[in-house]
């Protein structure tokens, strides 16, 4: 197999000055010290910042999950006050969704999209810097609510009024943090859209773009359509609390149920905002380790777009028990079930990609395979929840907790971890420790099932979610679930160790890293030069 990598790193020393003003800042390495990270406009630096921020938040949100599972290890109240428990569930969700998984995927987008489309950087590099640096402040404000009078928000991440309006001093800070996090996401997505639409290399037509780029393009549009809706909803909560409006207060003619509609009009696309980039990552990994092109890539693109569209017309399946006209129930039930079709197309195509492929099972492939099986379990339990009469039984039970954790942990998080192992050699120039990676995989894959599978049983047996205590008949499966959670938490410490070890050293990675990978990112050396594609590659 021939390799025609073009070493862009040595171009930088001589190619720039002939290009005049446009290129005057394109031909130096990174700045020294802290200022590199504060003022950087380089997509790779900003991608690294996003990914490190997400890794830190994984452990912050994970620590809260450990508190939750510690309290639920036995019935009765052992470690935390019920109000603190509710703060933990609320903050765990807010941090994991807005502070961990979304920034992680934006980090992947920053690192990989310009390299995949042959662009020198993101289209708007200074906006990119701002998008990231909003995040630590927003995260700090959100975390600071834990130390405020009345504690952190405790009414659930859905912030339903009137409960959320009964929060203490933390309420306006929470709203402000959500606004900032949303602003960061919107600015990031605008940058991603304009980068993909305007900065592609010659010959890189839309249908030639890698699936990861496609899934992010669709995700970015979802973000721009959905995040302002959440911002509008929480702004109205704020004015209801402090400025005398009654948008959601029945006493003043408002409608608290309307908030639920607004929230879930954002919230359901949010689920796909989280999962679509993981679809993209897996769509890069499975063909690489099957040594075959992705089966039905155009169908994958259409399926992704279909999922994006459908995500906006299914929101009220989260609210069947609130009550709505029969026609509404039927519509939301059936439209939700429709999502299974494009999702099944994806699962089929990933499987068909592996069919008669020359498979090897390096760590990224193992995490992708676990993603394929376990995300599908989450999808099936989602179908069960879509059945309105059944949902009346499952609603607000641990079955729902099991369902969305299967989608988000072995789904989205495993997708992100798979992507990290897949591209870490390209980012650092070092191969990760494959043995440790496989140990990490098996520990994670086993413990995640030990944690969440029993929660199906608990939910079907009637254990409600968001409670610090429970009836004694639920004890055994809660103990099993907690043991699994502690194991999963410890396993991720191993992941952090592997990442740090790879950054610090290890076997040198080649430009291609893997056996015959496809895509422009594998044509540049490993680690990828600080500036890639000063002159755009021509894609034939």
């Amino acid at each position: 197999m021939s390799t025609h990598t073009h070493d862009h790193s040595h171009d930088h020393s001589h190619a720039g000055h002939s290009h005049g003003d446009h290129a005057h800042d394109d031909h130096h390495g990174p700045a020294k010290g802290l200022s590199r990270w504060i003022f950087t406009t380089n997509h790779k630096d900003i991608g690294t910042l996003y990914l490190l921020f997400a890794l830190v938040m994984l452990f912050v949100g994970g620590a809260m999950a450990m508190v939750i599972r510690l309290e639920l290890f036995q019935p009765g109240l052992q470690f935390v006050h019920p109000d603190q428990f509710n703060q933990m569930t609320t903050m765990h969700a807010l941090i994991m969704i807005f502070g961990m998984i979304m920034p992680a995927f934006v980090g992947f987008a920053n690192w990989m999209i310009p390299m995949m489309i042959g662009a020198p950087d993101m289209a708007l590099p200074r906006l990119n810097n701002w998008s990231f640096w909003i995040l630590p402040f927003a995260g700090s404000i959100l975390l600071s609510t834990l130390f405020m009078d009345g504690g952190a928000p405790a009414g659930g991440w859905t912030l339903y009024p009137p409960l959320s309006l009964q929060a203490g001093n933390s309420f306006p800070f929470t709203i402000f943090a959500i606004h900032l996090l949303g602003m960061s996401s919107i600015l990031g997505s605008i940058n991603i859209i304009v980068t993909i639409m305007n900065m592609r290399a010659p010959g890189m037509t839309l249908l030639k773009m890698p699936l990861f780029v496609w899934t992010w393009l669709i995700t970015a549009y979802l973000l721009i359509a959905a995040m302002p809706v959440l911002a509008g909803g929480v702004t109205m909560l704020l004015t209801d609390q402090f400025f005398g409006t009654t948008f959601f207060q029945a006493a003043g003619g408002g409608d608290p149920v309307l908030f639920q509609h607004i929230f879930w009009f954002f919230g359901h696309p949010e689920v796909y905002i989280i999962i679509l980039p993981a679809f993209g990552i897996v769509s890069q990994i499975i063909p690489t380790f099957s040594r075959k092109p992705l089966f039905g890539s155009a169908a994958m693109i259409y399926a992704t777009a279909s999922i994006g569209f459908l995500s906006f017309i299914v929101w009220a399946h989260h609210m069947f028990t609130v009550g709505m006209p029969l026609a509404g129930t039927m519509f939301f039930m059936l439209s939700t079930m429709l999502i299974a079709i494009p999702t099944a197309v994806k699962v089929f195509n990933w499987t068909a990609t592996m069919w008669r492929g020359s498979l090897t099972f390096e760590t990224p492939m193992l995490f992708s395979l676990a993603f394929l099986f376990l995300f599908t379990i989450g999808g099936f339990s989602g179908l069960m929840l879509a059945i309105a009469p059944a949902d009346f039984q499952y609603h607000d039970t641990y079955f729902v907790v099991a369902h969305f954790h299967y989608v988000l942990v072995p789904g989205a998080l495993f997708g992100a971890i798979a992507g990290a192992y897949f591209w870490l050699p390209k980012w650092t120039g070092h191969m990760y420790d494959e043995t440790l990676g496989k140990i990490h995989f098996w520990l994670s894959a086993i413990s995640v099932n030990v944690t969440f599978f029993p929660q199906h049983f608990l939910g079907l047996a009637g254990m409600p979610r968001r409670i610090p205590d429970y009836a004694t008949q639920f004890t055994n499966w809660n103990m099993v679930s907690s043991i699994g959670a502690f194991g999963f938490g410890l396993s991720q410490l191993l992941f952090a160790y592997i990442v740090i070890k790879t950054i610090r050293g290890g076997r040198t990675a080649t430009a291609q890293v893997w056996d015959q990978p496809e895509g422009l990112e594998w044509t540049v050396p490993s680690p990828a030069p600080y500036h890639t594609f000063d002159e755009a590659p021509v894609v034939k």
Partner: protein
Amino acid sequence: MTGDLQNGAAPAGAAAGPDEIAAQRRQARRTALLLGIVAVCVYLGFIVAVGLRN
């Protein structure tokens, strides 16, 4: 889909130089402004719509 890019077969070339990239960035800024306006309109539109409904 990406078969043409396989194994580093996409050569580096000079088809899009700094001037073209600068032009791409100008176009990107205009598109970004439009998308930003759309986001603000969605934000305000939902607040106004809920206010009018009540």
